């Protein structure tokens, strides 16, 4: 089967995990890793696996390799992404933004991917958003959600310095995603870091308050179950910890996300769900491109 060429910008944990996930893809062909640190573990592993590596940044890469990739994953920082987005736009390339820069539309694969298949730049919100917005949507598609609140608890070890120094970015971006993609009239997000050893798996709780009198218990339960299966199709370690609890107009959903353990350890379900979602989105982009050529 024909494959679409892709490249990863950023050779840290996320970029390296993406590299391993892309090796399983039937529609994407990873060609290059682009970074700024020649000594990083990511660059070393990429070389071992036969990928081209570039350690002078995206500008340098684009000067000489315009045909090496059609789709890019940006796993750097919000600040760097703003620059990368401009460069890639000028080249007519598609980019998936895994940083909190939020230049392009928010995308959650199981909710609104179809609307943005031709977008030049899409943003993957946050890990908490990828884990919980599908469930907000699952409730909202059967009973209108007035208010949704999510609590993401992640192991301290899986929260990098970027997340820690800008923790408001998580709460604000996730809240916005709950509203814009999840469909809740109002959204709220809370993040908790837990330092327990051995590290805990990512846990997310979703509270959704549906419109007064709109609750349909059976439909809500069914919709949530369906959504669990949909997310599992690209994040196998995603599951409900227990049956959803429905009291009056409130639905509470308990989720746990175990990572695939590609490059990142299994407890980093929060990072894994981002890389898994990115690959899923890129595969859909690729299918669209391949069909377009026929």
């Amino acid at each position: 089967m024909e494959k679409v060429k892709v490249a990863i910008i950023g050779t840290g944990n996320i970029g390296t995990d993406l590299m391993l996930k892309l090796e399983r893809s039937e529609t994407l062909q990873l060609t290059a890793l682009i970074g700024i640190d020649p000594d990083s573990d990511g660059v070393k592993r990429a070389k071992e696996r036969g990928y081209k590596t570039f350690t002078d940044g995206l500008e340098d890469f684009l000067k000489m390799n315009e045909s090496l990739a059609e789709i890019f994953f940006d796993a750097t920082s919000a600040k760097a992404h703003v620059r990368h987005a401009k460069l890639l736009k000028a080249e007519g390339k598609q980019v998936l933004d895994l940083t909190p820069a939020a230049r392009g539309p928010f995308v959650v694969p199981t909710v609104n991917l179809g609307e943005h298949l031709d977008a030049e730049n899409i943003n993957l919100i946050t890990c908490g958003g990828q884990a919980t917005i599908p469930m907000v949507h699952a409730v909202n598609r059967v009973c209108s959600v007035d208010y949704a609140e999510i609590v993401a608890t992640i192991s301290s070890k899986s929260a990098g310095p970027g997340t820690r120094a800008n923790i408001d970015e998580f709460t604000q971006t996730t809240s916005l995603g709950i509203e814009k993609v999840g469909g809740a009239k109002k959204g709220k997000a809370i993040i908790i870091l837990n330092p327990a050893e051995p590290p805990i798996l990512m846990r997310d709780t979703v509270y959704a308050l549906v419109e007064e009198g709109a609750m349909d218990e059976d439909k809500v339960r069914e919709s949530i179950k369906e959504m669990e299966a949909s997310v599992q199709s690209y994040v196998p370690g995603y599951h409900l910890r227990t049956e959803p609890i429905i009291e009056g107009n409130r639905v509470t959903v308990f989720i746990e996300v175990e990572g695939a353990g590609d490059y990142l350890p299994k407890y980093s379900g929060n990072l894994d769900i981002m890389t898994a979602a990115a690959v899923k989105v890129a595969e859909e982009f690729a299918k669209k491109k391949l069909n377009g050529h026929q």
Partner: protein
Amino acid sequence: MTKSRDITITEVALRDGSHAIGHQYTLEQVTAVSKALDEANVPYIEVSHGDGLGGSSQQFGTSLTDEMKLIEAAVSVSKQAKVAVLLLPGVGTMKDLRQAADIGAKMARVATHVTEADVSPQHINLAKELGMETVGFLMMSHMAPVAKLVEQAKLMESYGADTVYVVDSAGALLPYEVRERIRAMRQELTVNIGFHGHNNLSLAMANTLVAIEEGATRIDGSIRCLGAGAGNTQTEVLIAVLERMGLNTGVDLYKMMDLAENIVAPILKKPQEIAKDSLVMGYAGVYSSFLLHAQRAAKQFDIDSRDILIELGKRKVVGGQEDMIIDVASEIAKRQKIVNA
């Protein structure tokens, strides 16, 4: 007439006490308590949702009254006292802090779990920029070894905290543990050291006195122990004890006793006491704010609330993880069903 205070008291009943009454403070209550505290010359009054700014939620309980309205009310009746707010990064945001500063809050207390101080620099910096006095609040201090606590306290100092608190959120610290913590911090830090106790093991007063002995000068109390779990160090009693020790707090003891009796006591549905659940929290090292949540879950699943709390302690659950209570309760209920079947 006011000589300088040896010990500076922050009254937390209007914030920590919010847990004990399910976040149901009214504007009238907060106004009356703040006014009386101001008249008794209490220097700092903390007002916020129990879990800090932005805490009103499904996870922690929704506030009856918008906390910004409560802060405004406290500010409006405080002639000498400064109003403080609590903020937990990950729950409250810089936007909330700006709003609180705009309406007159003068002190920001930025709280993190004892090992996670590095989520606080943004908020401490902003508070500084807004001209607020800043406090770093290291919660669940019993869960980290002394060296780790000191390292985290130094981080908060480096971000610009004017004071760093040892916060015994679970009321689990024993006096000698408070002693070694405050002593080590006093040796390594140049900023003020504070102590915030909970009375789950009936040690809040003893721990507070040990903290003062070792050099803590900023102390939290709650009038009538109106705080999470079994409540905090009882402010009016502390004032009396410190006076007997010759330490000046600048606070009027008689006025505090009157306020406790006439204004705060009627707010409490029942007096704060150490009952089995709060005792177990201190014993197992569980976040005091979990008390009412665990009692509700115990009822819902028809199990013993102590079993839930002990299990939460074993799993090293931290502050803010209220959603784990239902999770653990449902697991225990399932297990018990199997055993009884």
